[in-house]
């Protein structure tokens, strides 16, 4: 999606404590299997 939008230097990094963040929301037992908290960085050329 970022690539198609024209960005470069794209990085997606999972936060080390992603499971802890997701668990803190109490949205379901398997939520951390479906989603993760992370950072997206990119540059417009």
């Amino acid at each position: 999606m970022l690539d198609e939008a024209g960005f470069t230097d794209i990085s997606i990094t999972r936060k080390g404590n992603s499971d802890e963040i997701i668990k803190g929301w109490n949205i379901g037992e398997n939520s951390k299997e479906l989603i993760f908290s992370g950072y997206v960085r990119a540059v417009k050329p």
Partner: protein
Amino acid sequence: MKTFSDTVKRVVREKYASIAVSNNPGGCGCCGGEGNSFVNILAQGEKCGYSQEQLLDELAQANLGLGCGNPISLADLRQGETVLDLGSGAGFDAFLAAQAVGAQGRVIGVDMTCEMVRQAQKNAATLGLGNVEFRQGEIEELPVGDACVDVVISNCVINLSPDKAAVYREIHRVLKPGGRVSISDVMLSGELPDEFRNDIDAYTA
């Protein structure tokens, strides 16, 4: 005819409007519940990567504990830059950005929920910050001109959009050449199960 996207936006807007009102000292305060206590917001903020200094600063009155990371930490903000915060809420990240870019810099916060925009404007006035403004608008169609922003930040907002491709096209449009993106968000690890794909409640769980 209302589309699924329209419904998602309405549900998200209503959810965050109620949060803005319940956290407003002038509001009823009865809807916040245990999840919005100062201790819980502080604990969530530490998990998200904010420093103690940031969480205990007077700016933190704008922290509603709705983020999932600290996009400022990786944004490498510099004095004089123009920053755009997507889904700025009550303004916490925008205010941190305003501190980082200084008086010669500028921060624009965009939020589709008018109650959040009002709360952020109130917070900005209380904090005496003159280099930050808040605009009501949708992140799929930003009320911002072309190529006028140095950095786009966002904290746990783009996941709420039913058209993420449009959001990224808009981010690209408003950024100057060489402009940077620093986003904290939740992302899918794999395919979304069918039972969640059209579940409106899953957007605001």
